[in-house]
């Protein structure tokens, strides 16, 4: 599953066409994503890719470095055990 990551109003914002979450830290983003995934997938390993939107950087910065970061995450969902 792929998400776009950005930073706005001092918060990280992670979104795709179906889901959007904003939080103060990336840990909170990850927790939110995990909860969202558990509503879709009952169990299994879910690969998540996050791509930072470099448009968030002021334009004059972009000439120095055109990339911030991408993330590859693996979430282990097991909602059946939780029940």
């Amino acid at each position: 599953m792929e998400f776009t990551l950005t930073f706005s109003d001092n918060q990280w914002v992670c979104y795709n066409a179906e889901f959007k979450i904003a939080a103060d830290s990336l840990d909170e983003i990850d927790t939110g994503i995990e909860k969202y995934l558990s509503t879709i997938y009952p169990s299994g390993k879910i690969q998540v890719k996050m791509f930072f939107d470099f448009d968030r950087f002021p334009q004059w910065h972009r000439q120095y470095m055109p990339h911030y970061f991408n993330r590859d995450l693996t979430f282990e969902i097991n909602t059946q055990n939780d029940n």
Partner: protein
Amino acid sequence: MATLNKKWHHGMFRTEDWWSAWLGLFFFGLGLLSIWGLDAVGWIAKPKTWEFTNLMNDFSWSKLIKSSSKAYGHLPPLVVLGITYVIFTALTGIGAYFQKMNVKRWILGFSAIFLLTWMAWIVGHEAHFKAIDAVVKGKNQYQAFDLSWGLQLGGGFSFLLALTIGLIIGNFFKGFAAKIKEAAKPEWFIKTAIVLLGIKLGMMTMKASGFTYELALAGAAAAFVAYLLFWPIIYFVGRKWFGLNRASAAVLSSGISICGVSASIATAGAIKAKPIIPIAVSTLIVIYAMFELVILPPAYTAMAPDQPIVNGAALGMTVKTDGADAAAGAILDELMVSKHLKLTAQKWEEGWILSAALLTKIWIDIFIGIWSFVLAIIWIRNDKSNKNKEKIPWSEIWFRFPKFILAYLLVWGIYLGMMYLAPEILHDAKLGGNIAQGPFRKFLFMLTFLSIGIITDFSKLKGMGRLALLYTIALFGFIAPVAYLVAYIFHHGMLPPILGQ
């Protein structure tokens, strides 16, 4: 529409880094057409050395501007300048369009910058500023113009003048600066110029291969010094003495000790710092790069006029951002060549001192992707909350790798290939190559000097007291002296060849 780097080829037509490579390779390709007898680069205008009274007595544009080759010598000077303007505006405008810039603002901004750059370049070529009282290629310009006084600064005066004009605009005419800022892109201009310097490196290799390879390899030592000596010490001082948090200390350490703004953004991305940190640090780096650019070249020229390559390499380790480093290298090159000419009547070949500054910086640039990758792994391993088994994609190294260096190395490689495989075409190749790495490259440097001044706003230093203090102490108390020592160990005694020998 978001700007995302997903695939390896993303960004090839929308980043300034890639556009530096395309533009540089395009000009290089035009130059190579001389192999087949086509002069596709001689149209570019270049300034002539002139004298004020002589010009006023009998004004003529042909005393100020000329084409770069005789094939275009029949064209009036203002037509040559017009052609240069149209071609550069069109090519950079196409680049600006693909980079999602406002093309209308680009054209307006670039037109103003072009005009100001040429004014500075022409004024800088007035004989009282430029001419040196020595014979070069059988000619003494100082005596030819019958001067009674002169600053004898060579081409360095044009660079300093462009920088000064840029700084005045950036700090005292901020409304005007905001209007033309869209086109004030020193990194794009300088990286394109660096690609063309690959030609110079190729020619240097032909002339003195041992010297060039030694220069290139010794630059690798600079990378180790920057990453493994400067970085940990600045980080330690930032954390222990200045109470910076881990993220700020890491981002600032990279900015101060590695390669400036690009390193600070790469590091911040690697450790997933909030973007506000590299943005604040970048402002500081750009302003300090200006101090380094203005102070260090004349200081090194005065301190060690007999150690040109040491001075160049030391600049490469000390001055942050590619633009400021190349600009400082160009000033140093001009000042040292002029001073040596005045003192000894021998003219060192231009570009060797600049190449020493650049090769050192290029080695440092090459490793930024790997360094950020390592930092990212360290940061994740130390993050106890990382329960999600985050892996750092290998593609991060590629996305952070400066692509203009690939073009620079390709240009160098093509010259090496010709040298070893087809030496019979070298003479013709150099006809176009000399114009590409001469007038083209110098014009791009002039654009860089003016642009770097326009984007440097000293008022932004306000409120950065603690970071600015750490920067000052680290730069002048530690990095500059250690960089000089390392450069001395590797390069002392190395001299550029003397022109005509």
